[in-house]
């Protein structure tokens, strides 16, 4: 780094105030001054940038060391942040899995057309054709009475009982995959299909898909509201902790302000502390979520298996973890900023 000061000058001897006394500068031609001015301004800018980076690094390390020096109290603060983050995050994850379920359900939203028992196979095939020709029908699948029986037996495991029946009591049916899963469109389609001859009944099972969707919508809003509320909680926790830290270092702040520290300089270590609280809280939250997942995965898997489904609890992926961590870091930083800024105005050097 080039400095204007001559390297020979080693004593603490205060020079005649260079900056306070512009007229003491050696006179030079305006052109030369301009060129030198531009260059020295550039080196000054670079050296200031370096100094800025140096102070950032120093304060990041210093504030981290201060945290480590009082591990228990700071861990508790981070835990408070973590808990505040875990609740909305867990709720969000649950809803996310509900959404997955919802998508699966939507795919399986079908109409089932039950044919009259008197209809034979050839007729059934003709009816399927007619149904397939209807507008709004994407695909059809004919399930003959025998197939229906077989599937029924398989799913219930009641071979013996059903084998005892002389006649097959089940009608043939046609499963329809509609273009639109909107309740209105499906209702209209069902009405039209019911008028076809040989059709006994059309069943639409969509109401609970709808209900689930509304429920998920509601849940998502609740999660967002909770997230906002708990985010505010994080701000308060960090703000309060930083407020105490500022109070503890009040004398130091007064002194550095007396000798020319800017507000940014004073604020910086506290902002880093806040960000570190956020990072720590975020990491703890991720840990807690992982722990909770582990804790619940066994019973959830067992429960799902008992319904013949395979369902695993959702986990935060890389993106989700990054978002959670950045949010908590940002909240910590913001909480510190609010606390320091509010407090700095009350600190005046004596």
């Amino acid at each position: 780094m080039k400095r204007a000061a001559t390297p020979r000058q080693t004593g603490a001897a205060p020079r005649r105030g260079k900056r306070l006394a512009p007229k003491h500068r050696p006179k030079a031609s305006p052109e030369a001054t301009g060129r030198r001015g531009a260059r020295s301004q550039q080196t000054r800018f670079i050296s200031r940038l370096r100094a800025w980076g140096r102070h950032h690094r120093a304060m990041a390390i210093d504030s981290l060391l201060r945290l480590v020096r009082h591990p228990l109290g700071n861990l508790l603060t981070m835990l408070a942040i973590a808990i505040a983050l875990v609740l909305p995050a867990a709720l969000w994850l649950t809803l996310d899995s509900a959404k997955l379920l919802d998508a699966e359900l939507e795919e399986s939203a079908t109409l089932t057309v039950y044919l009259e028992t008197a209809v034979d196979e050839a007729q059934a095939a003709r009816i399927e054709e007619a149904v397939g020709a209807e507008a709004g029908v994407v695909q059809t699948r004919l399930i003959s009475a025998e197939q229906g029986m077989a599937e029924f037996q398989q799913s219930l495991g009641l071979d013996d009982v059903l084998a005892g029946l002389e006649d097959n009591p089940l009608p043939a049916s046609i499963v329809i995959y509609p273009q639109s899963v909107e309740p209105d469109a499906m209702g209209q389609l069902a009405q039209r299909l019911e008028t076809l001859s040989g059709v006994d009944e059309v069943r639409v099972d969509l109401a609970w898909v709808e209900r689930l969707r509304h429920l998920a919508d509601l849940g998502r809003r609740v999660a967002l509201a909770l997230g906002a509320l708990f985010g505010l909680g994080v701000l308060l926790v960090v703000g309060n902790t930083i407020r105490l830290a500022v109070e503890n270092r009040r004398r130091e702040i007064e002194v550095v302000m007396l000798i020319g520290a800017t507000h940014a300089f004073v604020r910086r270590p506290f902002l880093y502390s806040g960000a570190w609280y956020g990072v720590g809280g975020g990491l703890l939250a991720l840990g807690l979520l992982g722990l909770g997942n582990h804790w619940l995965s066994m019973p959830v898997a067992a429960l799902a298996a008992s319904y013949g489904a395979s369902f695993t609890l959702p986990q935060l992926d890389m993106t989700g973890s990054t978002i959670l961590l950045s949010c908590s870091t940002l909240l910590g930083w913001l909480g510190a900023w609010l606390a320091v800024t509010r407090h700095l105005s009350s600190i005046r050097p004596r």
Partner: protein
Amino acid sequence: MIAFEHVGKRYGGRFEALAHLNFRVARGEMVFLTGHSGAGKSSLLRLIMRLEKPSRGRVLVAGHDIAQLHASQVPFYRRQIGVVFQDHQLLFDRSVFRNVSLPLEIQGVEPREAARRVRAALDKVGLLHREKALPVELSGGEQQRVGIARAVVNKPALLLADEPTGNLDPQLSADIMGLFEDFNRIGTTVMIASHDLALIARLHHRILRLRDGRLVADEGAV
């Protein structure tokens, strides 16, 4: 270097700390400011440090009306003034070295350069061998010298001191004043508030005498 033009300062509307102050201090001068406690010495220094603004008149430092400085410029203004406090305002959680280097840290001076200047300043006040000590391990006189080292590490053009010998015995006080004279000799403008009349009378510098916030005598002016 310093000019007070019809300066007055009121606190809380009524109490008049300073009134009708008119004086100039030339570049490179050494000036003592005396008067009883409460005469306005500290208030005057606080005005120069721009910890406060005058209620009336103008305070000019190096030709600039410092009341005009924007709040964001004030830190940069203060960096150009070295200040020695009566209670020396050292930070007790860090070493002598770190205390002295504080102004350089604030200005972002490159660490090697800063270390060199800190050692030079400590050498000047005779405390180079105590750089690793904590301020509490030092005597009162040594602490004051650390305060002086911190004030001059920046090579300020203007050095202010508020009762720098307040709690020291006569011999130590004379030593401290000798230090200020050294700095003055190399061109620094020095202004010292002190009520140690016997000591400053021996030193033969200009003396500004304050009484109830008014300038009552200006002795030894050139």
